[in-house]
């Protein structure tokens, strides 16, 4: 047992049963002191469940956890923190209207006379912490005014303040720009090398795993597939372990299609839900047979742009024309009739009804048209089911029958259902937002190939994605959006991922003038 000292956490044969799902099935894992350990797997593979067990949020159905060789029971996050285990969640748990210092000391506030919070002490502790770990923050700033990258930094400081030696980071780069992600990696490396911390990082981005981790463990369907040294791994090997079969990252074949302008957007201005200006003088055009990618950090107007173009949000100024017909604040029905189909960014909120059956979801948009509605009134169940079954097969939606509620499908299959429906309308224009968010690797491949096929058949596609890899993989042209304005426009291949990050964050305003040509 000479190696026991090196193994910080050992998880042995952990199972976790949820009603109907075995989320973890006899999972074993060991974490060594001072390593960066990546956990990868598709959505629903059981990564988060495992981490929540280690962090004391879930109680395992069976199995044991050892800490420094001793068996321990972690029944609550408090137990975890006492062992020095801290977790940074994917969704930040910060109070936006509080200052940085207040957020960091929250829960263990320094007090004056036992009653009043000692704000000065909180600030000085924050400053000290910030200096020790080399993570620069301004203790007086309110959290709501800070960028996502900085907010994440505060989350990490919060965990360190509580004395964590082991940090679990759940999908930390999901919301970051490439620059912010790079910063985060530097912080992680520093924490490990200079300060002797141990990091567990959950992710599904394979490039990041290769870039930062020492070892990587792969999970699939609740089982631990294996752990390997990162230096022995590559993207292909990891993807195969994740999916359980060979995954082809082949180059997508793109055909040349003659250019014909089908959508042109002129000077659109619109407000967001808080009534702040979300889009300002946005103009661009979209041609048949091309994919125009919109790159941007989330919350810079992409969602609003899609909503305006599909009739779900009113615009204040501007207009757009679809095949020469001018549109200003028309209803979603009218816009659909002009030939725009829409795959929304949030499928659960906008793209489907989880209570309704799959066939009912497939019917949306054509429920009043022949032959699915006889004389526009009586639902023709036979024709409806035929179409639904055909789409289920064509789009490889994994379900025993189309009669099940859509809520029973996995994320990837739900997305395939939404895409199947919207693609089946055969519209000349497709607006696709976040097509592969929360979708597993196998389905991503499929969805990408479907999008390219649509393009090759001559559809004009507007693609909005927070995933830069996706934008680069699919787009012919790329537009960057920052604070509601277009900051750049490029042909794919003209610009590197790194440079485009600068346009996405508005940091190269001097270059932006050159990029935002008016065509």
């Amino acid at each position: 047992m000479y190696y026991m000292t090196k193994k910080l956490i050992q998880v042995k044969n952990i199972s976790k049963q949820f009603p109907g799902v075995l989320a973890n099935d006899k999972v074993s894992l060991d974490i060594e002191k001072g390593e960066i350990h990546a956990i990868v797997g598709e959505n629903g593979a059981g990564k988060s469940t495992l981490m929540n067990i280690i962090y004391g949020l879930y109680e395992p159905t069976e199995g044991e956890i050892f800490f420094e060789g001793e068996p321990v029971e972690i029944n609550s996050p408090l137990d975890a923190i006492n062992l020095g285990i801290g977790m940074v969640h994917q969704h930040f748990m910060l109070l936006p209207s509080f200052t940085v210092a207040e957020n960091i000391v929250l829960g263990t506030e320094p007090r004056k006379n036992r009653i009043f919070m000692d704000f000065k002490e909180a600030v000085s502790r924050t400053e000290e912490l910030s200096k020790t770990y080399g993570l620069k923050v301004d203790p007086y700033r309110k959290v709501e005014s800070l960028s996502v990258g900085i907010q994440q930094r505060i989350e990490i400081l919060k965990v360190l303040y509580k004395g964590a030696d082991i940090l679990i980071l759940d999908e930390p780069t999901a919301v970051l720009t490439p620059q912010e992600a790079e910063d985060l990696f530097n912080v992680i490396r520093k924490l490990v090398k200079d300060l002797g911390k141990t990091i567990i990082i959950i992710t599904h981005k394979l490039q990041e795993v290769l870039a930062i981790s020492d070892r990587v463990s792969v999970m699939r369907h609740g089982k631990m597939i294996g752990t390997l040294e990162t230096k022995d791994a590559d993207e292909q090997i990891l993807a195969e372990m994740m999916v359980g079969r060979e995954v082809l990252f082949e180059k997508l074949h793109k055909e040349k299609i003659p250019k014909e302008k089908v959508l042109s957007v002129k000077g659109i201005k619109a407000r967001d839900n808080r009534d702040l200006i979300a889009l300002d003088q946005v103009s661009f055009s979209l041609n048949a047979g091309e994919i125009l990618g919109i790159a941007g950090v989330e919350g810079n107007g992409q969602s609003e742009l899609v909503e305006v173009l599909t009739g779900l949000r009113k615009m204040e100024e501007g207009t757009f024309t679809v095949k020469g017909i001018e549109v200003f604040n028309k209803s979603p029905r009218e816009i659909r009739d002009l030939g725009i189909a829409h795959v929304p960014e949030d499928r659960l909120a906008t793209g489907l009804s989880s209570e309704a059956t799959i066939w009912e979801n497939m019917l949306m948009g054509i429920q009043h048209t022949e032959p699915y509605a006889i004389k526009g009134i009586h639902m023709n169940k036979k024709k409806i089911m035929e179409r639904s079954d055909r789409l289920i097969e064509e789009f490889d939606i994994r379900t025993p029958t189309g009669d099940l509620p859509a809520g029973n499908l996995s994320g990837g299959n739900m997305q395939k259902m939404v895409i199947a429906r919207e693609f089946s309308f055969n519209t000349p224009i497709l607006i696709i937002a976040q097509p592969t968010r929360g979708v597993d690797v196998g389905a991503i491949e499929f969805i990408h190939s479907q999008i390219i096929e649509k393009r090759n058949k001559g559809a004009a596609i507007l693609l909005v994605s927070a995933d830069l890899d996706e934008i680069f993989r699919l787009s012919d042209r790329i537009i960057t959006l920052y604070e509601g304005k277009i900051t750049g426009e490029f042909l794919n291949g003209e610009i590197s991922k790194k440079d485009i990050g600068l346009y996405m964050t508005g940091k190269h305003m001097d270059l932006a003038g050159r990029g935002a040509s008016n065509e």
Partner: protein
Amino acid sequence: MNSKLFKKDLEYIVSLVLSISASLLIGALIMMANGRSPAVGYGALLKGAFGSKYNMANTFAKTVPLVLTGLATAISFRSGIFNIGGEGQLYLGAFAAAYVGITFTTLPKGIGIILAIIAGALVGGLYAFVPGLLKVKYKIDEVITTIMLNTVAVFFTSYLVNYPFATTRGKLNGTEIIADQFHLSRLIRLSTLNTSIFFMGFIALLIYYLMEKTSTGYDFKLVGQNSLFARFGGINDRRQMIIAMVLSGALCGLAGVFEVLGVHYRFLQNISPGYAWDGMLVALIVKNNPIGVIIMSIFFGALKTGSISMENATSIPSELVLVIQSIIILFIAGEAGFKEKFKEWNAGRKVKQKAGERNA
């Protein structure tokens, strides 16, 4: 190929039957606690509800307003807009029918009745249109406005029948009797069962067809499930909600019309003992399923009719039935929770079994 769907429906029917049985059991315990025999009590109830032609007729007479208000609730709740104002719409619809019946006394029989029906439905629908519009245009909570409008309607009609439209013959808190040709024929001697049950059957069939078989029914349902998705798919969700509200109000108005034309022959100050509320319970229990509304209405009608006979025969208070009704609701409300617990327990047991097998 429908096996899964059937499984879900079956699950619900099982829990419904369990809930009803459990409530009846609790009712039996209450009877026993008061020193009475449940067998005798329930026997009297059953006999009172279905024991004779007359009793059965009374049960079905009670079903008419329940089905109409139940369907009214089903259609509005399914569309995601909550009409709690059925009682008010019923009162106004009833008054409108009575007004037609005492004003247009020269109309021939068929036309008069149809006019009264249309008037009642229209008034009920319009009264529901207002909160529907307020909800959709100004986001004013329809639950609050419809509840408040109940009181307005009840007191307004109360004023009307006590002052401008009060009957001159005696102090009855009611209008004059409607003209003879407006009376719906009674079907069984001494019972209030009348031809309105045929109207009700026809309307129920229509609403069932609308809700379950048409594209418009699909629109209602999808708006109720996820209005954003409906809007995204090109349905005018706001208009759909208003239509559902108006239809719901019209159905409640009709329930009132039939009380006037078929039962009382005049508008009375307290014409409804809370039919719309009972209808709402019915719809809630069967999760807004139109067929379920009909079946459950008969059950509720039987409970109501039977409870009176039970009280007469065994001196068990008829209020016991209200207790039973409420307990059914409680169980149904807890259904999801119970099911979850049961599944969890079952899953836990399976894992333990598995682990046991491996150890052995």
